[in-house]
């Protein structure tokens, strides 16, 4: 190891050695980012967490512009959208900006990149900071050029007068010109004058990813790097009873075995040597039994019987009234996996009493604190740097493997340690999306309108992120083990298990109860959309059941209960683009389905219409045409929004029609792609079209998780139309479908 290395993800690494101003930024950045917000006025987005403008934007003596975000690229395209926000307001070309993403030494602490929050939190902060920096440049230029500000124009990194005199940002900025607190109001570019925001700018990360550039944490190869593999226990909670390392130590390339209690890893020169060694170690390790797992067949009964903390999150009028027709139904979802294509990976180095961790965690700051507690180090001695991994779709094993790498690196000073999980580890040990159950009852009146709605949801927590060191898998298996944090519900209005449990529809009498069950027989945490996936599946399936009870068209029935004009527009647009006509008879075996939700009831609006075919003898569902409409507020990159919604629809189709984590009484049994299948190409929809409704005057709304729930319910609703049978248990997998509708 010759020198500190950086993930070669951007030009930033090169620039860091150049501009003196930037270097001094780098040295003081941590302090800048942590300055407390002024108490009085709420600043927009995450400016409230890091109010100094130079926490977000730096301009060096050569005019190089660096933008800092505490959010991370997860494959959702956030880097491109954030660059667009900065470039628009700074009036520079996007490709002249260097973007630095989540890094505990350099960027603001914006918590997790999760919950479809990045545009509201970081996009707003960067856009406002950029506009305020431009205003500072205007003021400085007015003084320098001796003209008044209204006579000046900002363009291409310079401020110009009408007669052609100009001053470049690099000439204007000096010392601590940008080390000023942000103001609540920003001189944002009016919608009609936007040139970069709203453009379909190609993603900045795609060419490198498609040509083999080192873009991922998996691609880091610092000098002297060693490969480690961790031997995970035989099952949850099992302890290392006895083991022999002789055979492993004799293997070629093996450098060391690192053990702390029941955490044991092999370190080797070569990656394949490490893999071979951990396989031999597995044959020489014996584990005590862990606690029994519940019976999978009756898992929902088991979960329902656990003690729960109950809260009534909506209570208006008399939700128990019977109307002219009252229906009741129960819906369930299984445990489902993030199942990233690339198993989780991290690189760590303990050198000069400092630990550096390259990680694809969604939260570098929380991870740093968690590792600090696990290693009994002050957080200041730990530097976590985000480097992209395979898509995560929530809290997968990214943090766990970073914890593994940290433990091993700490035991092997001066050696960069790369750990990648094996496929069976990723499938078997990641924290899954929780199994859930919902029960819903509703009544319609003589007019065919909903007059009462009762909804109950039972769920484990949807966030066991770090957190305490017990939230890192390795932390639970040390000689002095850490317990996972006490699970907590995520409160409304965003909610966790009860996310989207409150209906968006205008119903005069409604009651919603959230049953939070702290005990977790299976390891769980945040999977994209959290409880919203199941609650929207339930609500939107049941809306169709109620529409049928009222003799109404499903789209018309929804519109009759929707007051928000933006919600109505999204529903209307999707129906129109699909050519929705419920009266028209579908071909035999085919059915059409519709569903809608506003994610969290406060983020993006999304409606999905689709048709599908059900083969009753095989139980296979074949998706036909899928049409979606989405309103994400002001669309910064419409193609980025379409890409996210297309992906959400296809991923949700996979969750909804095939996916289910399996387990026996000892262990998770779905440990590869054959025991946990996901959608493959031949099962794709025939087409997916996404229509973006741009709202240039409206705030950004999170998009990343908006499609999952509506896609699931649209499939279930189309299935009901195709077969005459309503399926309420996810997934609608071939065996379930066969037993439900076999001829």
């Amino acid at each position, binding site marked *: 190891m010759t020198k500190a290395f950086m993930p070669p993800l951007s030009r930033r690494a090169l620039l860091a050695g150049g501009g003196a101003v930037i270097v001094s930024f780098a040295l003081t950045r941590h302090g800048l980012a942590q300055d407390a917000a002024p108490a009085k006025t709420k600043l927009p987005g995450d400016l409230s967490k890091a109010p100094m403008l130079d926490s977000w934007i730096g301009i060096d003596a050569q005019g190089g512009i660096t933008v800092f975000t505490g959010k991370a690229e997860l494959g959702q395209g956030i880097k491109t959208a954030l660059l667009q926000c900065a470039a628009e307001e700074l009036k520079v070309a996007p490709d002249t900006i260097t973007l630095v993403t989540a890094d505990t030494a350099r960027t603001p602490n914006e918590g997790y990149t999760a919950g479809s929050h990045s545009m509201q939190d970081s996009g707003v902060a960067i856009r406002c900071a950029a506009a305020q920096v431009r205003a500072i440049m205007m003021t400085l230029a007015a003084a320098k050029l001796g003209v008044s500000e209204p006579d000046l124009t900002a363009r291409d990194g310079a401020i110009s007068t009408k007669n052609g005199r100009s001053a470049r940002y690099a000439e204007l900025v000096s010392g601590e010109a940008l080390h000023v607190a942000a103001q609540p109001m920003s001189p944002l570019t009016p919608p009609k004058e936007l040139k970069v925001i709203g453009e379909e700018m*190609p993603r900045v990360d795609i060419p490198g990813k498609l*040509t083999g550039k080192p873009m991922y944490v998996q691609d880091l190869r610092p000098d002297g790097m060693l490969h480690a593999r961790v031997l995970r226990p035989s099952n949850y909670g099992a302890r290392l009873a006895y083991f022999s390392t002789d055979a492993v130590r004799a293997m070629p390339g093996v450098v060391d075995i690192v053990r702390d209690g029941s955490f044991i890893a092999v370190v080797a020169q070569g990656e394949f040597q490490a893999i071979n060694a951990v396989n031999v170690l597995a044959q020489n390790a014996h584990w005590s039994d862990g606690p029994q797992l519940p019976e999978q067949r009756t898992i929902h009964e088991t979960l329902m019987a656990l003690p729960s903390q109950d809260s009534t999150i909506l209570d208006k009028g008399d939700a128990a009234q019977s109307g002219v027709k009252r229906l009741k139904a129960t819906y369930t979802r299984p445990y489902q996996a993030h199942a990233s*294509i690339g198993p989780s990976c991290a690189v760590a180095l303990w050198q000069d009493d400092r630990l550096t961790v390259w990680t694809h965690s969604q939260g570098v700051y929380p991870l740093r604190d968690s590792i600090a507690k696990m290693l009994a180090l002050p957080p200041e001695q730990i530097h976590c740097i985000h480097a992209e991994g395979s898509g995560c779709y929530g809290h997968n094993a990214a943090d766990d493997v970073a914890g593994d790498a940290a433990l091993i690196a700490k035991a092997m000073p001066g050696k960069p340690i790369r750990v990648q999980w094996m496929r069976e580890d990723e499938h078997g040990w990641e924290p899954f999306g929780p199994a859930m159950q919902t029960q819903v009852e509703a009544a319609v009146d003589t007019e065919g309108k909903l007059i009462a709605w009762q909804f109950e949801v039972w769920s484990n927590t949807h966030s066991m992120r770090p957190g305490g060191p017990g939230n890192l898998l390795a932390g639970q298996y040390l000689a002095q083990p850490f317990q996972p944090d006490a699970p907590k519900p995520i409160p409304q209005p965003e909610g966790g298990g009860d996310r989207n449990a409150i209906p968006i529809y205008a119903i005069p009498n409604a009651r919603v109860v959230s049953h939070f069950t702290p005990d977790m027989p299976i390891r769980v945490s945040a999977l994209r959309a959290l409880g919203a996936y199941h609650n929207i599946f339930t609500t939107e399936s049941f809306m169709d059941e109620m529409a049928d009870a009222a003799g109404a068209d499903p789209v018309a029935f929804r519109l009759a209960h929707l007051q928000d004009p933006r919600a109505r527009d999204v529903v209307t647009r999707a129906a129109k683009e699909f050519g929705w006509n419920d009266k028209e008879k579908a071909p035999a075996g085919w059915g059409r389905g519709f569903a809608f939700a506003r994610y969290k009831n406060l983020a993006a609006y999304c409606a999905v219409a689709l048709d599908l075919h059900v083969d009753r003898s095989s139980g296979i569902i074949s998706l036909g045409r899928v049409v979606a409409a989405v309103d994400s507020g002001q669309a910064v990159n419409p193609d980025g929004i379409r890409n996210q919604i297309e992906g959400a629809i296809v991923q949700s189709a996979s969750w909804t029609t095939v996916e289910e984590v399996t387990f026996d009484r000892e262990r998770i049994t779905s440990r590869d792609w054959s025991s946990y299948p996901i959608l493959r190409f031949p099962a794709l929809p025939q087409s997916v079209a996404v229509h973006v409704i741009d709202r240039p005057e409206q705030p950004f709304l999170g998009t990343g998780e908006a499609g999952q729930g509506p896609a699931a319910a649209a499939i279930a609703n189309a299935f009901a139309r195709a077969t005459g049978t309503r399926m309420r248990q996810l997934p609608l997998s071939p065996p379930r479908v066969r037993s439900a509708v076999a001829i």
Partner: protein
Amino acid sequence: MTVVLNINSQRHEVDADPATPLLYVLRNDLKLNGAKFGCGLGQCGACTVLVEREPVFSCLTPIAVLEGRRVRTLEGLGTADKPGPLQAAFIKEQAAQCGYCIPGMILRAQALLEKNASPTQAQIRDHMQPNLCRCGTHMRILRAIDRAAKDMKTASATPPAPTETAR
């Protein structure tokens, strides 16, 4: 032990156990990032490369069987400045989210287009079956392959014909 490999038309002498799967040699010895570790089981296709004209799972292919055979990886198809037809089509269609599976997708699609210049939608879907994507980028991947097929035909309609298949 030394194994001689032909990767992207370059000769490499690799000092490794002949049982080592190609993937680890590509990634660690030759520092080629395109092929990715996904499962090590031949179930996901993230590690797909071409051996002669066939797509193979490099995670399962020991280097011992590759002496004298031509291996092509993502890096052999083009660069960010000069992308090959499939890479260019994937960029035009913005056919990536996290992008981790895409190199394998491109290599598998390359094998198809070298054998069948005008595949139907059904043929593309069937051919791509071994490769998994988790972000749900499939529809764009299909569009990109379709676009590449058309672009390659247009290009090959202009003489002289490419000598890609020469061995």
